[in-house]
């Protein structure tokens, strides 16, 4: 079972990101589950959302404590206690940041990509979730990028959808396809 934890702040679309990822997996014929861990629901507060993906039906409903992957929507959250908690030894971190970089010097590789900046360019809103998902799917090859586009098409239409589609393509191009494929396989995806 592959487990992913998404950290962000209220209003950044953390739950939507988790739902999109799980929906893309389900539409691809796998079992998946996505759910939030709400604090009091208010903009700016640190929040987390969880995704599980498996070939079997998923029975457990506890929070994800030992994820294989972290997606962090605000770089400032990297310093907040709890964000990195329980990350698996081979686990990796995808984080939004001003400058794209790959840091494999520590125990867990950290890839930074300018998700908010790309979102501003393509959809005019500082919401990093879709760009991070596009990069995450490209890195892990968990599913074809078209699965994310299909999941977006179920939520949006018209110009909003078209802008999101362009955002997905731009974000996917910022990272190395398949770089985290083995981590994803190792985690049972």
């Amino acid at each position, binding site marked *: 079972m592959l487990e992913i934890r998404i950290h962000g702040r209220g209003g950044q679309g953390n739950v939507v990101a988790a739902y999109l990822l799980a929906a893309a997996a389900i539409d691809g014929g796998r079992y998946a589950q996505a759910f*939030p861990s709400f604090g009091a629901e208010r903009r700016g507060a640190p929040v987390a959302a969880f995704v599980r993906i498996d070939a079997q039906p*998923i029975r457990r409903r506890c929070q994800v404590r030992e994820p294989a992957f972290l997606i962090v929507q605000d770089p400032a959250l990297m310093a907040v206690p709890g964000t990195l908690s329980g990350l698996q030894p081979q686990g990796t971190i995808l984080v939004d940041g001003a400058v794209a970089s790959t840091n494999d010097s520590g125990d867990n590789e950290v890839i930074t990509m300018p998700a908010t900046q790309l979102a501003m360019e393509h959809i005019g809103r500082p919401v990093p979730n879709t760009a991070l998902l596009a990069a995450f799917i490209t890195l892990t090859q968990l599913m074809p990028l078209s699965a994310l586009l299909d999941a977006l098409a179920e939520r949006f239409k018209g110009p909003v959808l078209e802008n999101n589609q362009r955002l997905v393509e731009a974000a996917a191009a910022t990272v190395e396809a398949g770089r985290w494929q083995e981590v994803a396989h190792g985690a049972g995806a």
Partner: protein
Amino acid sequence: MALALEGSLALARTIALCRPQVVAAYPITPQTHIVEGIAKLVADGQLNCEMVSVESEHSAASVALGAAVAGSRAYTASASQGILLMAEVLFDIAGLRVPLVMTCANRALSGPLNIWNDQQDSMAVRDAGWIQLYCATNQEAIDTTVQAFRIAERCELPVMVCVDGFTLTHTLEPLELPSADEVDGFLPAYVFRHGLNPSDPRSLGTLVAPEHFSEVRHAHHQALLRSMTEIEQADADWAAVVGRHCGGLLEVRGDPDARLGILTLGSVLGTLEDAMDMNPDLPRARFIKLRSFRPFPTEALREACAGLDVLIVLERAISPGGGGIVGPEVQMALANLENPPRVHNFAAGLGGRDLSLDLYERLVTTVTQAASSQPFSIIDVDTTLLPEADR
């Protein structure tokens, strides 16, 4: 085909398939998405229904009561403080034997304020006279909701479908929705024999004097007990349509030969099942999923517990100054078995405390080390945070 749906949205679509004619609700976390979903289906013209936005839960229940009595299939949903605010009307609905369905998106009660999941809210109205069915999964919540309308209308009793807030309502997962034909074939058009009808005038809910009140209560109690047959039948008949069971009154899962039992209500079961399978060195358990808490299925429970040495009753609410709520009822039901199991009663997951995979090991090791039943306790209490006198 399974669709990727949030539990609340799946419930909204299921309720629409049941063709309610009046929905009255007031939004409250974590019920909100259900009502929003229904409102959107009405606004989009996909559900022909009068959606009444009321100013409080007391009014929501009152409108649903009035609508059902006037001849409409009615529905409402609430949680937590909303359940408490409608409590007065919940007793009326049941006492007047009005068939309607509500979803309780289970949440803790104030104070202190807490928006997260436990089951204190539905337990607080345990004695209101409603049927209470607890759902272990979102799929069960979907299937139970369809069944609930038939149970309510055949028994002339209201049914509360209890769905763990957030843990189920806010989880997106693959879910099977029934087709409109399947639901239409299962649910005949709404009829309420004792409804208000100007061509056959009568009163409902008038003063009942001491010489009749005990009889009213007795009849209500008997109706709840009789509804057990209908709850089982609805589940069997719905299974014949969609191929999925919810367990009737209760369901035995896990290892049927185990001497250790764990009784649960709601969504914690899957986590315990996974934990047992992940820990082959630990004693195995027979899980008893209690689906119907009201009516309380005494006979089915005695059968399910036959041969157990130890039974853990794990519940999501407490009766302060008493202890557990479900535990003592289970203990009483089993008391005159030939060899009743030792019952250990715990509350866990209060106010949204995560029910993690290690819960199974902690439960099993605690009770296998204990020679006798332990007093009721809440799991995971950090007593160092408390003043000396409260530890």
